[in-house]
């Protein structure tokens, strides 16, 4: 009878490696990223140079910040689909108000709708318990509508991209994109907030078990409202950065970033059901997506084929990552 007993067997190297990676989920993600870069380099030798790195960073940064919004909201079991609209609104308002307003005033005007939309999202989700998907979708529709009404009033005055945003969005200093000046503090702040502050703890707790948090004295609506306002503010700032990068204020400027921002957070290991995840993974997720976009751009194949490939790669990356991290 005892002969079948499982003695703790000597752990094989493969298992040890797996456990090592499972405890440090960032490592497999970084490896995936490196693999993609290597493939890119093989396909187009010489492409991976200083300039390419800077460009990749430039595009990954706005995506990573928006994905940060998704990470934070997803930790509570939510999602923020209004980030695209908010970013677009801030960018458009900034570009049109700067024409005949003081930069500070223009900035404040640009952030106003962000705060408002975030607040309404927060109240809807936190107090009225509307599903975040629906709530943020609704506010983004409303926001878009207001933006279009607003747009008609500023056709005559035109738009201008402030030099500062231009510098921030596209400039380089010693080969490093200036956008890092914005991103590094933001990223540090988010990571610190999630791991080392009471508010961050509450995001995880609320997303994992709202009733438990409530019994511990947490007021759900406060956390949620603060969260969505914060998310919107970050989205608004991203909008300003993005307009500095793209330099063409359109009414759908940041819309294409919304789905990728969700994907980046998920690829980075944040659970859409709440309670699990972190921002470092998300940053790598955003980089992976950006590199992947480049990779597909330079592939000579019909657009249909490119999209199919993109879909499969995203699926493969997330599945492989989950496999590595999940098994404990």
């Amino acid at each position, binding site marked *: *009878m*005892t*002969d*079948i*007993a*499982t003695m*703790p067997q000597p752990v094989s190297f493969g298992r040890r490696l797996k*456990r090592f990676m499972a405890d440090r989920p960032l490592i497999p993600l970084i490896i995936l990223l490196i693999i993609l870069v290597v493939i890119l380099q093989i396909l187009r030798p010489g492409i991976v140079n200083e300039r390419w790195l800077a460009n990749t960073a430039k595009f990954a940064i706005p995506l990573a910040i928006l994905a940060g919004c998704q990470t934070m909201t997803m930790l509570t079991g939510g999602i923020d689909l209004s980030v695209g609209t908010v970013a677009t609104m801030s960018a458009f308002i900034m570009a049109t108000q700067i024409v005949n307003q003081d930069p500070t005033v223009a900035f404040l005007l640009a952030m106003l709708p962000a705060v408002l939309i975030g607040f309404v999202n927060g109240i809807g989700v936190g107090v009225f318990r509307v599903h975040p998907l629906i709530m943020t979708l609704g506010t983004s529709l409303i926001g878009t509508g207001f933006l279009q009404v607003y747009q008609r009033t500023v056709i005559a005055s035109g738009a201008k991209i402030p030099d500062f945003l231009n510098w921030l969005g596209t400039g380089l200093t010693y080969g490093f994109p200036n956008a890092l000046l914005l991103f590094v503090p933001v990223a540090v702040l988010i990571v*610190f907030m999630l791991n*080392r*502050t*009471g*508010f961050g*703890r*509450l995001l*995880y*707790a609320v997303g*994992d*078990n709202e*009733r*438990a*948090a*409530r*019994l*511990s*004295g*947490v*007021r759900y609506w*406060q956390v949620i409202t*603060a969260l969505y306002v914060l998310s919107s503010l970050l989205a608004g700032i991203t909008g300003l950065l993005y307009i500095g990068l793209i330099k063409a204020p359109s009414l759908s400027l940041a819309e294409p970033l919304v789905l990728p921002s969700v994907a980046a957070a998920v690829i980075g290991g944040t659970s859409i059901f709440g*309670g*699990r995840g972190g921002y470092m993974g998300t940053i790598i997720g955003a980089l992976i997506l950006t590199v992947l976009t480049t990779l597909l751009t330079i592939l000579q194949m019909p657009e249909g084929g490119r999209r199919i490939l993109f879909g499969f790669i995203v699926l493969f990356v997330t599945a492989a990552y989950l496999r590595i991290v999940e*098994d*404990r």
Partner: protein
Amino acid sequence: MTTNPLLDATGVAKNYGAVAALRNASLSVLPGEVHALMGANGAGKSTLVKILTGAINADAGRILIRGKQLDVRSPADARRAGLLPVYQEPSLIPDLDVLSNLRLTGTPIEPFRAWVRELGIPNLDIRDTARDIPLAILRVLDLARALAVEPDVLLLDEMTAALPANLAEKVLEVVRRQGDAGRSVIFISHRFVEISALCDRATVLRDGSTVGVVDIEPGIEERIVEMMLGTRIEKTRVAARSANDVGTVGGRNPRLSVRNLQLGTKLNDVSFDLANGEVVGVFALEGQGQDELFAALAGSIRPTGGTIEVDGAPAKFSHPSDAVQAGIAYVPGDRTEALAMQRSVRENIALPFSAGLRKWGPIRMRREQVVVSGVIGRLQIDTRVLGEVQRLSGGNQQKVTIARWIAANARTILCFDPTRGIDVGTKQEIYKLLRELAGQGKSVLFYTSEMEEVQRVCDRVIVIFGGRVVDTFPVEDADEPTLMRAAYGLPRGARADVGILADVRPASDAEAAS
């Protein structure tokens, strides 16, 4: 043994990563016997049940059913093989009504209804959605659903843990009859009273391995405990009257003073005091308003009438955070209600520290670490599986729910059935802990579904029936017949002539009272 075992499992092992939930478990069940499966919290009982019924797959081991090796890879397979479990957690689909739940599992309806009546629930509406049904009733429905298909082997994982005494007794009765009818039952419980009243043999697990199989006979408890824990433990009576005197120094306001509390039809005119340094027990049958009383004191629901005073000052709680502010903490009976399962033990314990708006800022990690490891040590929480709380066994999870409030230094703890499904060793620890807290001048309100606990820890007992306080005893007067009588709404001294009270004391009580 002459008969062949109906179910025979040997060498079962299961690893969760680095944690071995089962190392070498074996279990052999004869036809017609009620077989106890015993072990301390985390010994692997639930894991074994899940493996036997196909809910999880073992890493190693051999399972024979009627001498044949069957491939049980899913609960559906187990069902076909005649193995039916009632798991530790209710498994009715919350959003379906009872009828649909029956249709889903292909359970015949009439036998089910009959069993439900037999188990002491006369007026079940099978169109009720499972989500709206109280936990205790759900457990009974789970059992009735299993019984209705007349399984060969019925596996009951802590079936009685969440049941009030009256329902638990019905369950025991029914289970006993299963054995008489030639069907086998595997019965998991931490209550020796039940084991000795019901079971023929017991298999004891320790740390994932079977350490012995014994016949149940008078006096065997000590041996089982020894096997379970590996050492002798002393069953002490912790209730220390002397501690009581310290807390209620004259003249000061009671810590909590409840007057004429009213809550819809659930609570009527409830009044009582809770002094500093006092442990007050609440005893009641299922659904007499105790849930609502605790919820109201914890700020989860707003009472419709009456007053609550804290330290002599009137208090109004519109949210649990108000109660927490007033130093009143609530430990729910259902662990899943109290814990963020995917978060670490540390985060769970430290959760109240960040709750208030003022405390959203940076955390002083070092200080937190000291406080948290302090309580972990004090409660001897098993953190072999550092990391997610969901990987702790039930008993250790329960400890975390209490540890949180000790760390937060709450002055009053409302414990709702804190020993539900906890092994004897851990129970003793919790009793001691509660007394210790009282000794430090803290006050505890303690609801329990086990009569014996009342006597072990409380200074006073209040009994609730139909949403009213029917009686309050000092603990010396609270012997079991008196408590039971009061719990059925009969005042002290009245004669028990109502039918149901005739068998209030099951035969086994005599042994248990020792």
